[in-house]
């Protein structure tokens, strides 16, 4: 259990399922110079440092409110505020955001979504991922089973997480990296990449 994992698990249960809704909300309110992916990352960062999440009754609303405050602080800190950012800012007034029936049903579907997301992983990543996650083998055991180095398994898991984040966070098929994956997938060996911090 990593020291950050208790909050990460809260994010997994309460925020990740609403990320597609957040992205949809953000894409309806574009702000010059602000990228949706940047806002999403910063929103997760804020939710990670919020003192207590126990009292949050409606995570979806809280998520959108947090994203909005990320945007506002960027607009306020920009040295030159573009004219129409100000109008966008006014337009950003928070409209009550009722959870739609789709969101309510989403939770019930989360396991099926996960299964579909795993199905979309590139073949080698998927093979590793199924052994590690579905069969609950350790990374070391997976390495032994497949006869490859443990670091190779770690790289495949990294790739898998990034891909799943894309799929689950965008509420459907992977977008980013789809073409990159297509070329890597034909390489014939497990793709190698630098370790974190190297």
């Amino acid at each position, binding site marked *: 259990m990593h020291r950050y*994992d208790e909050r990460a698990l809260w994010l997994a249960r309460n925020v990740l399922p609403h990320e597609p809704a957040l992205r949809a909300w953000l894409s309806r309110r574009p702000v010059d110079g602000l990228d949706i992916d940047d806002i999403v990352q910063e929103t997760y960062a804020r939710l990670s440092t919020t003192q207590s999440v126990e009292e949050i009754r409606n995570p979806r609303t809280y998520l959108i409110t947090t994203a909005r405050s990320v945007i506002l602080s960027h607009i306020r800190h920009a040295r030159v505020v573009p004219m129409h950012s100000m109008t966008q800012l006014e337009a950003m007034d928070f409209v009550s955001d009722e959870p739609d029936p789709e969101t309510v049903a989403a939770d019930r579907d*989360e396991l099926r979504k996960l*299964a579909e997301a795993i199905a979309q992983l590139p073949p080698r990543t998927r093979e590793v991922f199924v052994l590690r996650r579905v069969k609950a083998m350790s990374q070391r055991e997976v390495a032994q089973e497949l006869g490859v180095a443990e670091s190779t398994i770690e790289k495949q898991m990294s790739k898998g997480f990034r891909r799943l984040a894309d799929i689950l966070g965008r509420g459907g098929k992977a977008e980013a990296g789809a073409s990159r994956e297509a070329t890597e997938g034909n390489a014939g060996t497990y793709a190698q990449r630098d370790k974190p911090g190297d």
Partner: protein
Amino acid sequence: MPGLMHRETSQEIDAVAADWAARIDRGALSPADEGELDAWIAGDARRLGAFMRMRAVALQSNSARALGPDFDPEAFAQAEPPAATPITRRRLFWLGGSAVAASALGAIGLGLMMRDTVYETKLGEMRVVTLEDGSAVTLNTASRIRVAFADARRTVTLEEGEALFDVAKDPARPFIVEAGGTSVRAVGTSFSVKRLSDAPVEVLVREGIVEVAQPATPRPVRMTANMRIVTSHAVAQPVAIAPTEVDREIAWRSGRIAFEGEPLAQAAAAFGRYSDTRIIIEDPGIGREEITGLFASNDPVTFARAAAASLELKAVIGPGEVRLSR
């Protein structure tokens, strides 16, 4: 944000964040690695968020264990254009399976005798079963259900263990879970039922409404989301609980057990449901110490070590057991 000279892209950050999440997935980080992680996170406001998001994905994907050892990703692949789909042996086999299911449905329609279907899990196992009406049942460790669907009602008997029911809506055909004299009736909702040999039956509602009938009470009691009932008392009443507690209670779905201030003895016993390794507490005084945290349900040794570290105990690991003492 606008007007900065060079800026790392969010994709670059995601790549490093995923590497860290995978490194942690491999095993505990060394103190040096932890320091390196903190230094990296401190470099940009977005990095912590990207890292936490990747850890969230890593933890969320633990629920994949519930897909069971027979999980076949091919069955979940998005439909491809028919012309481009070669007919593989696996696909033929799958078609065969659904043909059998179709004839079974036909048998119900004709009112023929249908045998009940039994699903069960072994110690430490977990699986998701999709029923013919589209409802999903997640079985926790060492659990058994018997499914008997009829035209007027859908009956599932929880013979042992614990299960989470995600019920497909069908007002004409109520979904009823029987568990040792307690019967839980739902139309379309999500709730869990626990029936362990040495404890009263417990029902927990995640969403929707259920009605719980107990032998001791004349009228069923109604329960809504975030309520729990323990049917030990003569007339048990449901109690409202926090949504976070509901999440904690069904943490088993992602292969985890959550504790919040439970006595160590109770926490240690909870691991007994998931594996043969016993956690033995040598002194009752230690057993009363409180424990909080989230642990892998199939890893009693790591739990015992963590408990020992936080309560300043000694953990001696032997074959099939861990002993905790002062």
